[in-house]
C-alpha cells in the first residue's frame, strides 16, 4: 500500500498545526534511531513525525490512523534498552515531548504529570514538595515519565524495598488505540480494589493506549544512610543477597555491585584509588532518621555473613556521590574502550549464584564473536545481574552487532527461564518476545495477542513490538 508522505503530513498538520509536523527524511531518521547500535533501515523510517499537545489531538490522530490503516509508534525519549522505541515498520511517529505539564497537589496527596516530562525534571519539582519519585533510571536526564510507567520500571530500585512505580499510580487519562479518550482510577490516595483498568495500562509498553495524563501518589522523602563494602570475590556478594532474602531482612532501596573488573574501571573513571576486589554499595531508607541509622547499623552487622574485606557506613555525602557515580561511570567508560552488549538476568533468589556462573560461561563462549570479555555489575539486591559481553573495539559491522545482541538476548533470557525469573527492568516485548514465548505457556502469549486485538483491532499502536520484530 503506497502512502503519500505529503498527504499524511497535510492531514496531521490540520490536527496539530503545521509547525508541529515533520515530513522530511532527516527528522524522520533522527526520531527512528534508538539506543540499539545498528543503523536505521528504510523500514524503520516514519512517513511523518507528529507532536501533539493534548489527548484531543492524539484522539484525532489515532482515528485518522485507523481509518487509513497507518501504524503509529509512540516516542518518549527513545532510550529503551530492548528496542521498544524504534519503529518496526513505516508509519507515523507520535512524539510526546510537547506534553510536559506537571501539577502538584499536596492537599490531595498526589501529583499529575504529562508523559513527555523528563524524569530528572519530575524529581526536581517533587523535591520542592519534599516528595520522592520512586523511579531511578540512570537515563533520568532524558528518559520520560510516560515511558517509565509504560514499561513500569524502577531501574536501580530494589522492588522488595519500595515497589515498582506503577504501584503509586492512582489513575490515568489514556487514549485508546482506536482514538477514544478514557479516564481510569481515582483521585483519592487509596487505589481502587478490583478490576480497575489503570492496571492494564501500567507496563502496557505502548500497545494498549497512549498515556496522556498520569496521576501518582506523593511519597514523602525518606532519610538515607549509605554503606559501601569490598569483597574478595563477586561470589561473596551473591551469597550476601541470597542470605538477605533467606533471613527475611528488609532490603536496602539500592543494592548495587561492581565485579572486580568493573570496579577498577568505575573507580578509575571517577578518580578514586583502585578498589580492592568487588564492590557493593547500598542505600538504606527509612521515614524516620533514627530508623535509617538503626537499619544501617543492623545491615552492617548482617553483612559480616559473607566476610567482606571491609564494610562501612559512608557519612560524607560527597564521598557517597562519588562512589555511587562510579557505578554509572563503569558502564560509560567501558563503552569508551570498546563495545558492550548487555543482559538483564533476574533469577529466583536462591538460584542467583548458579545463574551468575551460567551467564559467565555463556558470555565467554558466544558463537557470534570470539575473544570478548565478561564483565558484570548491577542491581544485585533486586536481584538483577547485568552481565556484559565486552569487546575492546568499535570496529564491528552492523550484522555482527545485531548478531551479538540477538545471541546475548536469547541465551541470557534462557537463564531467566531456567532459574525462574522474568527480568524486571526493560519490558517484555520487542527483543524479549522470544523469551516470553519460551518461558510461559503458549496461552500466555496468546492472551496478550487477544488483549491487543481487542483494544487495537487494526494493530495501529507500536506495531511489531508484540510480534517481536527487530
Amino acid at each position, binding site marked *: 500500500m503506497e502512502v503519500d508522505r505529503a498527504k499524511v503530513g497535510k492531514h496531521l498538520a490540520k490536527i496539530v498545526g503545521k509547525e508541529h509536523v515533520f515530513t522530511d527524511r*532527516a*527528522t524522520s*531518521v*533522527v526520531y527512528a534511531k*534508538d*539506543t540499539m547500535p545498528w543503523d536505521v533501515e528504510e523500514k524503520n523510517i516514519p512517513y511523518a513525525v507528529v507532536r501533539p499537545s493534548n489527548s484531543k489531538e492524539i484522539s484525532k490522530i489515532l482515528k485518522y490512523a485507523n481509518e487509513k490503516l497507518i501504524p503509529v509508534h509512540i516516542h518518549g525519549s527513545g532510550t529503551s534498552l530492548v528496542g521498544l522505541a524504534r519503529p518496526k515498520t513505516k508509519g507515523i511517529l507520535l512524539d510526546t515531548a510537547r506534553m*510536559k505539564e506537571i501539577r502538584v497537589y499536596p492537599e490531595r496527596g498526589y501529583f499529575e504529570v504529562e508523559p513527555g516530562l523528563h524524569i530528572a525534571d519530575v524529581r526536581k519539582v517533587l523535591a520542592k514538595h519534599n516528595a520522592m519519585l520512586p523511579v531511578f533510571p540512570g537515563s533520568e536526564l*532524558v528518559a520520560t515519565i510516560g515511558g517509565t510507567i509504560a514499561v513500569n520500571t524502577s531501574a536501580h530500585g530494589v522492588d522488595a524495598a519500595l515497589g515498582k512505580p506503577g504501584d503509586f499510580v492512582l489513575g490515568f487519562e489514556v487514549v485508546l488505540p482506536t482514538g477514544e479518550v478514557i479516564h481510569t482510577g481515582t483521585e483519592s490516595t487509596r487505589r481502587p480494589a478490583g478490576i480497575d483498568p489503570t492496571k492494564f495500562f501500567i507496563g502496557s509498553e505502548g500497545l494498549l493506549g497512549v498515556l496522556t495524563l498520569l496521576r501518582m501518589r506523593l511519597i514523602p522523602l525518606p532519610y538515607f544512610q549509605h554503606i559501601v563494602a569490598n569483597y574478595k570475590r563477586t561470589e561473596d556478594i551473591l551469597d550476601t543477597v541470597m542470605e538477605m532474602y533467606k533471613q527475611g531482612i528488609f532490603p536496602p532501596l539500592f543494592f548495587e555491585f561492581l565485579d572486580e573488573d568493573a570496579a577498577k574501571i568505575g573507580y578509575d573513571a571517577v578518580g578514586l584509588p583502585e578498589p580492592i576486589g568487588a564492590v557493593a554499595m547500598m542505600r538504606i531508607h527509612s521515614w524516620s532518621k533514627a530508623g535509617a541509622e538503626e537499619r544501617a547499623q543492623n545491615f552492617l552487622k548482617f553483612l559480616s555473613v559473607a566476610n567482606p574485606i571491609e564494610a562501612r557506613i559512608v557519612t560524607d555525602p560527597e564521598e557517597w556521590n562519588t562512589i555511587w557515580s562510579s557505578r554509572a561511570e563503569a558502564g560509560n567508560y567501558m563503552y*569508551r574502550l570498546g563495545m558492550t552488549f548487555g543482559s538483564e538476568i533476574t533469577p529466583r533468589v536462591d538460584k542467583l549464584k548458579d545463574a551468575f556462573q551460567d551467564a559467565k560461561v555463556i558470555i565467554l563462549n558466544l558463537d557470534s564473536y570470539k575473544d570478548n570479555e565478561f564483565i558484570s555489575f548491577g542491581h544485585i539486591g533486586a536481584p538483577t545481574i547485568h552481565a556484559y559481553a565486552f569487546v575492546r573495539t568499535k570496529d564491528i559491522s552492523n550484522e555482527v552487532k545485531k548478531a551479538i545482541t540477538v545471541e546475548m538476548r536469547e541465551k541470557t533470557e534462557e537463564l531467566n527461564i531456567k532459574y525462574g525469573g522474568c527480568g524486571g527492568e526493560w519490558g517484555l516485548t520487542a527483543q524479549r518476545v522470544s523469551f516470553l514465548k519460551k518461558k510461559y505457556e503458549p496461552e500466555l502469549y496468546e492472551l496478550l495477542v487477544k488483549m491487543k486485538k481487542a483494544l487495537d483491532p487494526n494493530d495501529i499502536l507500536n506495531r511489531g513490538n508484540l510480534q517481536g520484530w527487530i
Partner: protein
Amino acid sequence: MDIKEQEVTKNTLLKEIAKCRACRFCVDACSLYQVTEGVESMAPYGRLQILKYLLNGMLDEDDPIIYSLYSCLQCGRCDRVCQAKGQDLEVSKLIRLGKYLLSQGLVKGKKSEKV
C-alpha cells in the same frame, strides 16, 4: 578543500560518531532542543545522526538538514555533558566539522563535490 581532504574529514567524522553510545544526555543540555520543545533533530545527538546518515548516503542535503546543522550555536554545553557522563566526544566540534563539509557546497562560485 580538495577531494582527499574531504575524504579525511568524512572518515574522521564517521569514526568519531561511531563512538557515540546513544545515551542522549547531550539532548537535554541543548538550548535549541529546549526552545523547540523537544524536537530531536534540533539536539546534538540528532545532529550527529543526521551527519552520519548524510555521509553514508541515506540522506540528501536539503533545507531541513541545513536548518538542523546550522542552528547549532556551537555553545559547547553538549561537549561538557559528554565529557562528564558520556563518551567524551567533542560533539559541537563534530557538528562544526559537518558545517565545514557542507559550507563548501553552499558558498557560491565554488565548484566542489557535493557531500
